């Protein structure tokens, strides 16, 4: 878990009375946090002040936040060293109002489009019902550029499988389709950290997955605190690790993406 959290500001979700009790979010490290715990001050436009974010960079720090009953840790998509430059593209595939089965199809299609334009995506469960499709990125693009790129990719996916996927944010207009959230990439925005436990019965975790494990009958709940250690030992290599290690460029993908989009446009006008 630590390699994923390295240099990233995090937000904690704390459940001092257990997962059925009152919970709260904590971005701001308290004044009484021990001095050895790393914090980084980041100015927040929203609250018009500096927030001291936790940065979890040691087993001790992980134990410290666990002791705060911080069950799920949400991480930024950029690091302190390049805070405005994400080091991955993120497609948060959210089946709320639909089914995991459809989410699996949508995730596959996102991966297909990404591979067609020469990018290699990684996959993890969100730990809840959703899936995170992530492309490791050289941290040289702005959040806005990454978002625009992702929106174009998501647009291609929706064009190909319009009955399964949507990029409509309004849940009421989704009509059973799965939402591809490409907007979860930005300053201050977070995703559930890899291996983070979610506050659901059975204590599922956000688990790395190999693409050939992604089957229509996927039950994300089978990846939980009881099974994940043995699973990772069996896999040997963490399949999500490329999100960190394989930092890709968008330059070569751009003309290919453009080609796909204009092909689709031509096909459409030909039909008409």
């Amino acid at each position, binding site marked *: 878990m630590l390699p994923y959290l390295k240099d990233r500001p995090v937000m904690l979700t704390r459940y001092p009375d257990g997962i059925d009790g009152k919970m709260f979010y904590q971005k701001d490290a308290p004044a009484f946090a021990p001095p050895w715990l790393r914090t980084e001050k980041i*100015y927040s436009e929203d609250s018009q002040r500096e927030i001291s974010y936790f940065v979890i960079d040691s087993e001790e720090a992980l134990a410290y936040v666990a002791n705060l009953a911080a069950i799920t840790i949400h991480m930024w998509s950029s690091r302190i060293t390049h805070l405005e430059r994400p080091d991955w593209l993120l497609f948060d595939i959210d089946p709320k109002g639909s089914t995991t089965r459809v989410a699996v199809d949508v995730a596959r299609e996102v991966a297909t489009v990404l591979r067609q334009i020469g990018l290699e995506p990684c996959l993890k469960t969100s730990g809840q019902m959703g899936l995170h499709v992530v492309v490791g990125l050289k941290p040289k693009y702005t959040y806005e550029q990454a978002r625009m790129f992702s929106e174009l990719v998501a647009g291609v996916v929706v064009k190909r499988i319009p009955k399964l996927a949507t990029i409509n944010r309004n849940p009421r207009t989704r009509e059973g389709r799965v939402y591809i959230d490409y907007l979860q990439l930005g300053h201050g925005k977070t995703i559930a950290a890899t291996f983070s436990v979610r506050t659901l019965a059975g204590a599922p975790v956000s688990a790395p997955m190999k693409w050939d494990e992604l089957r229509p009958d996927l039950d994300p709940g089978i990846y939980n605190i009881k099974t994940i250690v043995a699973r990772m030992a069996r896999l040997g290599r963490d399949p999500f690790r490329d999100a960190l290690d394989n930092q890709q460029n968008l330059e070569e993908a751009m003309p290919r993406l453009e080609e796909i989009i204009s092909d689709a*446009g031509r096909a459409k006008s030909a039909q008409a």
Partner: protein
Amino acid sequence: MPARSISTASITFGLVSIPVRLFPATSPKNVRFNLLHAKDNSRIQEKIFCPVEEKIIDRSELVRGYEVEKGRYVTFTDEELKKLEAQGDHAIEISEFIPVSEVDPIRFENSYLLGCEPTSAKAYHLLMQAMAKEKRVAVAKFTMRGKERLVLIRPYDDGLMLHTMYYNDEIRAFGEIDHGAKASVVESELGLAQRLIADLSKKKFDAEQYKDNYRERVLEVAEQKMAGHEVTEGAPEVRRANVIDLMSALKASLKKRGVEIGSEGGAKAEESAATEHVEKERAHASKVSRRPSAKRQAR
């Protein structure tokens, strides 16, 4: 975490006395908001303000006043009120057993689960089972914190439940409220309405299917807001004209940033250019400062 009892009491009937504990049986899950000062989201305080002296006064300067006529008060101190409280506190005195159908639901105020003490387990279950067999519930007078409450005790889920009830003078009638008492009903219409009811009739009440959707929506949006999602539910969607525009906007953006599309040569120069931009962005968009001491210790 075991539930905390809010009070102890003792059920008496005949010569038997059964010590019990009261636990709230319901916990309303309303969405609660705190009022904040919008400027900086700080919590606010309410102060007690005296409009005559035009100043904020302390709670210790307050006294209870009972309005005997408009603008005229008689006052009571806490000690005086204490003396007026009923004797025999915490006694639940059963006066009669009745069929529960005799009680209109309007009577029910709050519900409490009754727990038994180790010493009272046998008497507790005896009372519960006897009531269940006789299909009767107990009406009792409960002296709680000095006040006399009308309560009902009934078998519930292998235990006893206590409901506080409203007295007669606490219950309103239709009286002046127009409820169409004189409207005439045609037989055929009545038959239609009855058939409608029959169609929607169920043997059992399945409470599972009913949820507070408002609360769920508020909590969902709160979670999205905290996770940094843009929450635009209900607001018009801002759509770009078309993907081609988005594509050219992205291309222009990448060009402007000095990251030339397709020019992989001079990757180093790109990197350093990017770094430079990062520095610039930090300077205006998000001011980043560090605590060097904390960092050094961490490493």
